[in-house]
């Protein structure tokens, strides 16, 4: 966290992220405060981090595809939002820019907790709207194509330092889910 947040602020932010994840069971929100080098590109770093980071405190039902990463570079004072493939069809660059723009005054003041809160709330609002619309479209036009199971397997490999019990449970869950998918037309 690079000392951007105090302990109480961090706890508040964690509660906020938990609420977000409760509302969106497929997604997760992560925040990275760091000091990047001047030459580093924050977009590239966000892309790399979301693809290679292993979130130990997340369950297997939330793949990195549904991840949203807020990157705040305290060195160059730049903030960025990256998101996984699951949100590719629902979030645009304009959406994320508008969300960041609303947090801009708080970022300028160095109030990172407030900035993160604004971003999470605004993003939740956008995602709620998109979700409702998507579900409605799905009801009208039918379900989309099936989920790719390759990414889930790779995710399991990434989160290798989980306990063996949890891994076994997640494996059994996955096989059950795969079987049910085969049975269903």
């Amino acid at each position, binding site marked *: 966290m690079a000392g951007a947040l105090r302990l109480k602020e961090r706890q508040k932010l964690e509660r906020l992220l938990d609420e977000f994840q409760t509302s969106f*069971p497929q997604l997760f929100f992560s925040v990275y405060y760091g000091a990047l080098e001047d030459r580093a590109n924050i*977009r590239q770093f966000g892309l790399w981090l979301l693809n290679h980071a292993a979130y130990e405190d997340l369950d297997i039902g939330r793949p990195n595809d549904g991840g949203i990463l807020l990157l705040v570079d305290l060195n160059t004072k730049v903030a960025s*939002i*990256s998101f996984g493939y*699951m949100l590719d069809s629902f979030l645009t*660059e304009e959406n994320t*820019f508008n969300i960041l723009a609303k947090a*801009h005054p708080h970022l300028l003041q160095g109030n990172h907790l407030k900035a993160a809160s604004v971003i999470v709330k605004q993003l939740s609002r956008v995602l709620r709207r998109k979700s409702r619309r998507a579900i409605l479209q799905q009801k009208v036009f039918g*379900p989309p194509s099936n989920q790719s199971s390759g990414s889930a397997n790779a995710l399991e490999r990434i989160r290798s330092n989980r306990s063996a019990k949890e891994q076994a449970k997640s494996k059994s869950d996955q096989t059950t889910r795969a079987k049910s998918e085969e049975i269903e037309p």
Partner: protein
Amino acid sequence: MKLSLFRWLLLLLLVSDSARAEPLPQLTDEDRARLQQLLSKQEHPDRSGFLEYHAEGSELKIRMYLFDSKENLADTYTIEKLCEDQNADEPLTAIVFCFLGNPERSQLAFAGQGAAEVLALDRRKMLKSAIIKAMEKSDHVMQLEAFIVELSISLFWLESKRAETLAAQAAEGSRELAGKAWASGNGVEKVEVVTAIDASGFSVLKSHLHWIILGFLSLLCLITGCVFGWLIWTRSRRYHFPVVETPERLGASYAAGVGAVIAFHKKLGSPSSQRNQVPDYLKRA
């Protein structure tokens, strides 16, 4: 003696609709007027018409006795005796003795229900103002007309004053009853009856105040419950996204979403000036 006096008495009785029954059964008002020749054939209906007009618009009737200017009344035939003879249950009536051509001799008294409540001072003022108005005219008949008109106006104000007094008394009574009902916790129906008589909106509001407060609190609880319910429902609601298979880009297994970047190193760099800074190589295919 009485009979001869009565025959000499040039009495013209002009009364309103409700008070037209002075006992001379064989003669009508018109016959009497013609007999006594105090008013001409045209003047009589004019004065009578005005009294009827007054009777239509007022609850306080006028019973007028018209005499010759020099007529002397018998001691037993006084205005006070006339008032006493009138039934106390009858509506309030102004009894006037007018002496044609001599308005200063005019007399005024009240009989009927509530006659005792009319102050002597008010009565004297009314009579005096009517006499003054009559004295302004030179013609006898015009004097009579001015006298009646002024008396009618005075009676209108007296009637308004009495109505206000009655309303105030009724309001006071209803307030007392409402206070008793409120203290005892029952008798709401009784209060309703009183307020209906009172016809005062404030009293009605006051009598129903506890129901209004109760209703307001119930409404408030209902709204609060609805808001809480909506908040709980919103918080407990889950939002899902349809899973769409997306081709991998840039060799990324999980994410190639190009989000926005915003810089906050200087205060003058507004967010709008930083829009559309996505490099081409990161744009979605």
